[in-house]
């Protein structure tokens, strides 16, 4: 594209706008596919298994280590102000409000998102989507929609598991290793964490992230060029776009939810 040619710029802008329009249409079709998915719960179940169960290992282990680190760092910092017992509250708030949804989303994008993109891209390359269309079955309904809704359901559950395991990791480090009083750990946490404000907003965030990551992954696979190179580029784009979107959305949601 020659940037000094208005015609080229115009063409580039128009094709970007067309791409955004196409993506929006796909999102609407995926949302409308809920009816179809509810009629075929077996498809949804298989996809939840593929996206959720297979991600449990990485989410669980990551949550544990993040909890360890939070407990450790939190202790060192709070101890200086004599508030070491607030570690529990600090770990819980950090996880529930931010790290739980965000880190889970980033890990999900890397593990499940790329798997989705590659799968859809390869199906496109092998003409499977075309064949399905020719058999009068809408591939968006049959293949994409179950994956979309499965991602939407699996993400909040994974984020909850991440946060829960993280808090226990913080407990292991804080109480078992560093000797903070267990009662104070949980007590301070309970008084500082509000179910609706902290946990509820965290759940809302993870639902939004689930939609974002799954949609980006499915979109990239759907519009990928049907060559090995095209699929490879699409998976890269999934991780990059999904991660950046999650971080940007996190900022916007945090500003909306936690403004004083």
């Amino acid at each position, binding site marked *: 594209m020659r940037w000094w040619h208005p015609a080229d710029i115009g063409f580039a802008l128009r094709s970007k706008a067309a791409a955004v329009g196409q993506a929006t249409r796909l999102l609407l079709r995926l949302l409308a596919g809920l009816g179809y998915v509810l009629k075929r719960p077996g498809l949804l179940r298989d996809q939840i298994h593929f996206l959720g169960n297979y991600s449990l290992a990485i989410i669980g282990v990551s949550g544990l280590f993040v909890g360890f680190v939070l407990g450790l760092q939190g202790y060192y910092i709070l101890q200086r102000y004599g508030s070491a017992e607030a570690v529990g509250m600090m770990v819980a708030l950090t996880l529930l409000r931010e790290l739980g949804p965000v880190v889970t989303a980033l890990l999900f994008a890397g593990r499940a998102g790329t798997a989705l993109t590659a799968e859809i891209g390869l*199906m496109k390359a*092998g*003409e*499977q989507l*075309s*064949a*399905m*269309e*020719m*058999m*009068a*079955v*809408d591939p968006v309904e*049959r293949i994409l929609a179950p994956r979309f809704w499965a991602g939407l359901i699996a993400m909040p559950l994974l984020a909850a598991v991440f946060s829960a395991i993280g808090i226990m990791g913080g407990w292991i480090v804080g109480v078992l290793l560093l000797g903070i009083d267990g009662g104070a750990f949980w007590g301070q946490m309970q008084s500082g964490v509000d179910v609706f404000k902290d946990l509820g907003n965290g759940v809302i965030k993870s639902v939004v992230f689930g939609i974002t990551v799954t949609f980006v992954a499915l979109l990239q696979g759907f519009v990928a060029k049907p060559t090995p190179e095209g699929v490879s580029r699409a998976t890269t784009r999934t991780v990059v776009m999904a991660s950046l979107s999650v971080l940007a959305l996190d900022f916007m949601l945090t500003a909306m939810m936690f403004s004083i």
Partner: protein
Amino acid sequence: MMTMPDIAGFSMQSSASPPLVELRNVTFGYGDRTILRDVSLTIPRGKVTALMGASGGGKTTVLRLIGGQARAQAGQVLLDGQDVGAMSQAQLYAARRRMGMLFQFGALFTDMTVFENVAFPLREHTDLSEGLVRDIVLMKLQAVGLRGARDLMPSQISGGMARRVALARAMALDPEFIMYDEPFAGLDPISLGTSAQLIRELNDALGLTSIIVSHDLEETFKLADQVIILGPGVVAAQGTPDKVRASSDPLVHQFVHALPQGPVPFHVQGPSLDADFGVDALKGGR
């Protein structure tokens, strides 16, 4: 054979009836590349028609236009009298249930077994019990000789077998009209002969209409009742194999006799011989 409700209005009449598929003055292209320019052709009912031509000449495009996966920019694509381009989504899906399409490499669903692949259209479009579905699937697999492979995955069977499974799948709903995209490409002689025989037998035994897009001169000419040769954007020839073989059109002649030189040039456009090999320079030129 089951009788299907007449949703898309297909009628099973003798070969004296109007053609099943007709393209009238169809123009189609991508961006500034025109693939079909004012093309008109007819596909007669109950016969095997072959679509041939140089690579990129628009053969697969014609199939996609008929199947409604692409829309013509001008002209009409008539399926039993109805314009495919003007159909609503529901009408298009109803029409597609009456046709079968065989993709070049089979396009089997790689996450399902052979059995599940053939059962797919039945399970999606009918409410038949699993017992009935099983019987139909096994019958279709029997017709293509792959009943024993029913529990294998597509990655475990050869390319030729995959294509036969795809044929069984295309036949699952007993369509009245099948399109084959390069059914002979890359097959060994045995598979080739088997496939050709299958296409012929199915067409005659079930009263189907078949369109074959192919590059294989010998096999296709032996098989087809009618041959259409597409040149760059136009129909170069249309008629029985013998008539086409005897055509005096230079493009058709080059194609049918597999000549390297003719209207389709051997050399791709590029710099002249002199410029590349410097013959003029030897003579002390520029």
